[in-house]
């Protein structure tokens, strides 16, 4: 839920990284955190289990420079991927301005992608949101795996709508910024065109 504060001259937007468990959502956020200059990022908050699985969410605020006197801030969140954490996922989706789906390219995880995408549709529906109507970008992560499915196949099966997509190897940073740039620009364009959602 984008918020414009005319007094502090700030615009805040929320972007959620969604996808199956161990697909690389946290790796995306971690790479962004590691690479950005300290003045542009806030603290990285990670609510994870001892096994490094995201329990509730990861949170990273990013700040753009001032444009026409306004500061734009993006709040990046990840959701826990495991099926049984759906209540948490639903909470984090509330008020999101854009979604990145981090899909696992591994053939062995194909069904997990399908399940997670279906779950995303269902959870968005509860907030009267729909992919395509809100900014949405797909990322095919783990392109370096030996059993990675061809991108054409992933797109044909999981992205028939033709949403913007990127290949990635998140832990190395490949495709991470391209994905974020794309969704961030979509979110800002949406701000200019969406009907008043009050």
């Amino acid at each position, binding site marked *: 839920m984008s918020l414009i504060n005319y*007094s502090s001259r700030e615009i805040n937007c929320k972007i959620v990284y969604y996808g199956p468990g161990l697909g690389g959502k946290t790796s995306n956020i971690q790479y962004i955190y590691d690479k950005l200059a300290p003045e542009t990022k806030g603290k990285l908050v990670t609510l994870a289990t001892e096994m490094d699985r995201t329990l509730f969410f990861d949170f990273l605020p990013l700040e753009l420079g001032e444009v*026409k006197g306004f500061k734009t801030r993006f709040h990046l969140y990840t959701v826990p991927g495991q099926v049984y954490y759906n209540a948490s996922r639903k909470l984090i989706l509330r008020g999101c301005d854009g979604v990145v789906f981090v899909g696992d390219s591994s053939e062995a995880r194909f069904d997990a992608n399908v399940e997670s995408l279906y779950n995303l549709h269902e959870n968005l529906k509860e907030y009267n949101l729909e992919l395509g109507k809100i900014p949405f970008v797909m990322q095919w992560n783990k392109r370096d795996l030996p059993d990675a499915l061809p991108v054409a196949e992933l797109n044909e099966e999981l992205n028939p709508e033709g949403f913007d997509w990127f290949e990635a190897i998140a832990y190395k940073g490949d495709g991470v910024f391209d994905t974020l740039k794309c969704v961030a620009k979509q979110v800002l364009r949406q701000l*200019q065109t*969406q009907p008043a959602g009050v």
Partner: protein
Amino acid sequence: MVRAEWAIFEEDYWAITNALEALVQSAQAKHVLLVDRTGQMIAQVGDSPDFDTQSFASLCAADFEANFALAKLIGEDDFSTLYHQGARDSMYLGKIARGVVLAVVFDKSTTLGLVRLRVRRTVEELNVIIEGLFDKLQYRNEEYDPFDQEFSEGVEQEIDNLFAD
């Protein structure tokens, strides 16, 4: 034309800040913060916090949302307030209209009873301000618009700069 889901205008910001200032004084609290339900900070008064306020805002909203879901699970409509007790500092959270959350951080120089009493009054005051603000958005968004093509080009440039590999 920017049409955010909601916006805070100068006069509302000051009305909110005044209400929060009054609460800090009357409840003898350390910090009072107002956060929206997606974890975005709206206003903050009191002593300058020595913690990260953005993380605080995000976790506060999550805390409230999780408890809201818990309330539903056990058949309650909502938990309108939450209390977290610490050895030194404690927190009292209250729900305002439109899912906005009021968070009061206080130490042993005051009591939970006093905080609770004062929060109740402030919640009523803030409810009126927040509801009024949402009513106003219907037409203010149309007339108050510093965001044009130049703005979006500028922001896109900033995005490219920030995420340059």
